[in-house]
């Protein structure tokens, strides 16, 4: 930690301004989400007639009851939640493996063939073959209707990989040289030095990938046939759809707006809960100094 010995008046004023500004910003940022939570506990008519409220007048848990009750949608919702957790965890690990290995490989300056490979990556970032060709590839590899189809086609995001590579290139070169003199192979250096030093980066991109997996419903829609395999977000979308379908059953009116809000809350809260656990790794960068010293 930086020891603060002398604090000038300017520093104090600066602090006050920064704290106040950020606090106001944080409130502006979070109010709409509080509205969503409040609305998920409000009857539909209240959502439709009251602007931006933070506490419902006539609180109700109907939407949550329907979604979470095992007799109603609960079984399917919890099952799909389990599937999404597994897909997200496994998927993120695979993402990080593919991304960091490739990024590290490409971070060596003067690596022969690096230029063309980087260009290929950029090329694919910009040009894409579209949905049908990828579908055919996935099917040809025997991944249709398997969870692999939700994970492997997106194993690397070119964008993320290029930024991770950038982080690796910024690592102090001296460390690697020292290690290589100690007899480590490049893989050894990668595992023993580069990765531990890049924990903030791994946490960051792990989070990006995890959020991507968590929110992805389209892959499941395209590649899965068996409804029992559907992940969380796809089931949640169905719940919203069902509440919109008013025509077929003239007696059952589900509060559409309330369900929508509850679905957003249920879909978001798990990933918000995970975040603080990742957060501590963002500060792990101090290790750079520690190892060097």
């Amino acid at each position, binding site marked *: 930690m930086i020891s603060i010995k002398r604090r000038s008046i300017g520093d104090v004023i600066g602090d006050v301004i920064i704290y106040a500004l950020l606090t106001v910003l944080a409130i502006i940022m979070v109010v709409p989400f509080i509205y969503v939570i409040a609305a998920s506990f409000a009857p539909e008519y209240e959502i439709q007639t009251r602007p931006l409220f933070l506490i419902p007048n006539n609180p109700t848990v109907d939407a949550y009851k329907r979604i979470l009750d095992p007799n109603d949608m609960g079984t399917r919702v919890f099952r799909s939640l389990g599937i999404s957790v597994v897909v997200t965890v496994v998927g993120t690990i695979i993402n990080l493996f593919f991304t960091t290995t490739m990024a590290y490989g490409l971070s060596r300056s003067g690596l022969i063939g690096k230029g063309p490979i980087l260009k290929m990556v950029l090329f694919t970032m910009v040009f894409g073959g579209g949905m049908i060709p990828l579908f055919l590839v996935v099917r040809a590899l025997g991944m249709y209707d398997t969870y692999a189809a939700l994970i*492997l086609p997106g194993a690397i995001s070119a964008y993320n990989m290029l930024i991770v590579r950038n982080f690796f290139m910024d690592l102090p070169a001296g460390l690697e040289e020292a290690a290589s003199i100690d007899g480590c192979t490049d893989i050894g250096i990668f595992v023993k030095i580069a990765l531990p030093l890049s924990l903030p980066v791994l946490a960051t991109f792990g989070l990006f990938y995890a959020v991507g997996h968590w929110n992805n419903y389209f892959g499941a829609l395209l590649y899965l046939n068996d409804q029992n395999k559907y992940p969380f977000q796809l089931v949640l979308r169905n719940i919203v759809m069902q509440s919109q379908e008013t025509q077929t059953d003239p007696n059952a009116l589900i509060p559409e707006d309330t369900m929508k809000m509850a679905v957003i809350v249920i879909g978001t809260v798990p990933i918000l809960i995970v975040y603080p656990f990742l957060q501590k790794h963002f500060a792990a960068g101090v290790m750079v100094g520690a190892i060097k010293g």
Partner: protein
Amino acid sequence: MAKTQKVQLTPQEKAVAKQKKWTRIKRDKWMYLLLLPGFLYFIVFKIVPMWGVLIAFKDYYAGMPFFTLEHWIGFRNFTDFFGDSSFLQLLRNTLIISFMNLIFYFPLPIVLALLLNEIKVQWYKKALQTLVYVPHFVSMVVIASISFMLLKTPSMEGASGGGLYEIIKAMTGKEVNILGSPTAIYWILLIQNIWKETGWGTIIFLAALAGVDVEQYEAAIVDGANRFQQLIYITVPAILGTIVTMFILRMGSVLDTGFEQIILMQNELNRNTSETFDTYVYQVGRIQGNYGYSTAVGLFKSIISIICIQTANTLAKKAGQTGLY
């Protein structure tokens, strides 16, 4: 990859160079092994499906036998697109929306990350970080409905409008129809985007900041540098590489505006100024099912993107940065 001067080499020198090349490849063999899985990934899932771009040159429909001589229409999808009376309008709208984001939105996550970095009370810093990420998870539909709530004009004489509408009216005395204004739509889109993504966008920069060597600050403090000087001489240079990388990558999506947000905010009074390539392709491709045409538009966007990335990369290198490749 600095450009090397081309010099005539004697055969002997060439042989030496070749041998050198081989020793280098051998030396880096483990690096090649490391990047192999990723390389294969790109070949299988990105390059192989690339034949899909040929759709742009076909009168394509899903299920059409692909490698036949039929249905080739050459550049007709492109000429249709460029010849369309709305092409320039679409280009203009797309560029305005995109560049407003680039100019006003792009720096904000950096600024916010630097501000957050100045918070020394750890629990408060963590709490703030968590709060500013939340908007990223709020769906665009909700954001649009809140925007309508705040900006709506009165439905009848004597009724009141949305909160922001009333504030503007009280301050300027003017009744401004923001939702129906052909130019205000750009600011609405920008502000929604800033609200939703600034906090989330700080993550990468915070990760970069976490990598800054603490010793440097300690040394600077000993030298008597104040907070602002530390920021300018230590912090910013340390994350400049990340900023440049992000900027170059951002240039690759200079014609991407997304469609959901815009379509939610569109109405007959601002459609002319808010229709972009993405919203148009969404309607023609997804709704009408005209894949050849929408792929052609996509291909055009890709070519512009690659030119922009190339330009940005060259400029970055000229400015003394490493660049992307």
